């Protein structure tokens, strides 16, 4: 599937991200969100910052927010679990308005070998982090509203990007 034929396109997501005034995308490659990275990487006003682990991403974003920039994170739901203490100790304790975009491995619950999809929403719920599913272009506006909600509530808010329909 290319970007024009999929129900959710990198172009639509990038348009919303730009509308939010995002300055930095802190990311770890994920096959589920690769189509977004590819479009974002060509945007000169957005700095892409690759990391080695997802917990780093949250902390780097925290430093950027303290310095008055508008970062977002982009990684897989497995990385959400890895970055737990950064989310707690920085995102929640420092009340940071952080937009987290999370590619959801196993979201449709059809994996025989991976529980990542099953635990994603309950984990976010446990932290009190609001989350919104964006799986088609018509829903891309949720990105701007989630970003606004993060700013207003001073909390991380997550956008979940599920696996494509097979």
């Amino acid at each position, binding site marked *: 599937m290319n970007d024009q034929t999929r129900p959710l396109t990198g172009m639509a997501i990038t348009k919303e991200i730009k509308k939010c005034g995002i300055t930095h995308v802190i990311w770890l490659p994920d096959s589920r969100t690769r189509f977004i990275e590819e479009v974002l990487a060509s945007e000169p006003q957005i*700095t892409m*910052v690759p990391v080695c682990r997802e917990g780093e991403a949250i902390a780097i974003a925290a430093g950027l927010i303290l310095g008055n920039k508008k970062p977002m994170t982009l990684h897989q739901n497995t990385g959400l679990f890895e970055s737990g203490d950064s989310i707690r*100790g920085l995102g929640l*304790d420092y009340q940071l308005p952080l937009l987290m975009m999370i590619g959801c491995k196993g979201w449709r619950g059809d994996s025989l070998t991976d529980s990542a999809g099953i635990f994603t929403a309950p984990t976010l719920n446990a932290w009190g982090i609001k989350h919104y599913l964006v799986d088609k272009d018509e829903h891309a506006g949720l990105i701007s509203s989630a970003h606004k909600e993060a700013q207003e509530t001073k909390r991380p808010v997550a956008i979940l990007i599920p696996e494509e329909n097979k």
Partner: protein
Amino acid sequence: MMNSLEAQKIISGNRNGAAVIATYTTNREWPQASDKPGLDLLFAGGMGKASSLGLGLAMARPDLNVIVLDGDGSLLMNLGSLVTIANVAPPNLIHFVFENGIYRTTGCQPIPNQAKISFAGLAEAAGYANVYEFEEVESLAGKIATVMKQRGPTFVCLKIEPSAKKSPLPYTKTNLEIVGQFKKALAASSVGV
């Protein structure tokens, strides 16, 4: 080997308006050394994320030097940050690691591979622009001005005496008050790098 607080006093005397992020052992002692508490972020850790937090701030504020006071056990929890920092290469980041070889906060257990690991070697291999290692406080004092003037990222490993003595936690404010004060001081400061 050098005394941790003595080393911090030397760093404090040469910070020249830099923001400082201090974590684990150093966040207990830094208030005794610092004369600019507004620009200090005493950071509980986030499992070793002080270096990453410092990287984000250094990117956001290229007009300001950012000093990270890290621990050896702390850095071991976030070793990938060495590569991430070297890749971004912020010229205004100075990353100190206080290598005492133990987890002082949790009861002085040895860090893994305590006697053999080279933090300076790791930073050099990761690609930091400048890497220093100091065994004695006199050598740190003699070189600190040069260290601070380098175009970073700069990594400085300090060999610290292992000591079981812990300064009491310095927190008299909540996390939100600490970070609020830090943000306010950041907004008011603009120091040429």
